[in-house]
């Protein structure tokens, strides 16, 4: 888990009172989750930085008004996801108004590394990454979220991906079963296939 609810609530209260170190603790705990959400939405790099900053600025302006400070991670995830959808809608509208971007160069179409590539690059084992990339996109995204460090809670993943909390465990188990089937018969060279 990133932060226990009581710990998160403590950081929120302290940051609201002006404690910069508490704010930085929140940034450390949740910036990876926010970035993973942004990568999953395949925003252009400049837009990605804007969404990240909008999310944190929204927290600053709401930090004294959060109804449940212990769930600030889910709040941030929901905010980031909604800002991603806003940027995607804006880009779609611009495409409609201004004509189509060049499919050969526009990252919306191709050329961007997959979201999971970014997440999984942090993983030490390239072979694990290659196998996970064989999963369908939503399952890849879920596994990417589960592999984040610090690992988000199921509630935060639910808010990040817009899926019910109750579906995460079964989907995770299903993914792990699939992954077992995808591992080469001779196993992974020197890999620690972490199935926990």
């Amino acid at each position, binding site marked *: 888990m990133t932060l226990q609810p009581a710990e998160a609530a403590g950081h929120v209260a302290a940051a609201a009172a002006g404690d*910069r170190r508490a704010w930085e603790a929140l940034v450390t705990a949740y910036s990876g989750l*926010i970035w993973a959400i942004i990568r999953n939405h395949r925003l252009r790099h400049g837009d990605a930085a*804007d*969404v990240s900053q909008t999310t*944190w600025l929204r927290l600053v302006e709401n930090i004294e008004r959060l109804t449940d400070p212990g769930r600030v991670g889910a709040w941030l995830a929901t905010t980031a996801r*909604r800002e991603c959808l806003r940027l995607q809608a804006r880009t779609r509208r611009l495409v409609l108004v201004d004509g189509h971007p060049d499919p050969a160069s526009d990252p919306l179409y191709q050329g961007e590394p997959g979201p999971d590539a970014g997440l999984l690059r942090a993983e030490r084992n390239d072979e694990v990454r290659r196998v996970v990339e064989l999963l369908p996109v939503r399952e890849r995204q879920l596994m990417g979220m589960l592999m984040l460090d610090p690992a988000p809670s199921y509630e935060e993943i639910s808010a990040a991906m817009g899926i019910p909390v109750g579906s995460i465990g079964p989907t995770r188990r299903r993914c792990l079963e699939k992954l077992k089937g995808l591992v080469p018969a001779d196993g992974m060279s020197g890999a620690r296939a972490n199935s926990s």
Partner: protein
Amino acid sequence: MTPQTSGGSEHPDDAAPRPWDVPDDPAPEGSGVGSVPESVLDAARRAFDAGPSAEVADLVFDSLLDEDPAGLAFADPSVRRLHFGVDAGDRGARVTASETGESVRVTLQVLPPAEATVEVRSKGITFLARTDQNGIIRFDVLPGLVSLLITPVRSPLPRPLQTAWVRL
């Protein structure tokens, strides 16, 4: 209607970044937390310094995502419409934004309609503007994060409002 802007302060590239400045093109990956680019992490830490200086008017409607309660199906789809409001009362702002080349043309209507000064915090520049007597003004900003600090001019007890940060 003529935009009445003054006190513009462009933000030079070599000046210390402001809380709402973000890297134009962060590296796609980084060595920071969870592969977040370090420049994005720095910006997130800086956001702390943007604590609101006035009551925040939340973004309660954005034509990009929300179904228009007024059912304005005839509205120009190339113009984005946003509504900022506070929980209680009718104070707030309506904003329309349309892309004009490399900038965004913004029209602000202060609610309830009244003359106000507006501090426009935007990408690359912060400037002061003054609406007309009906609380309306137009100005251009670069695409990026924007927040408006609105202070009524004639109110005996001016209660400034700050619009939620939004990416225009």
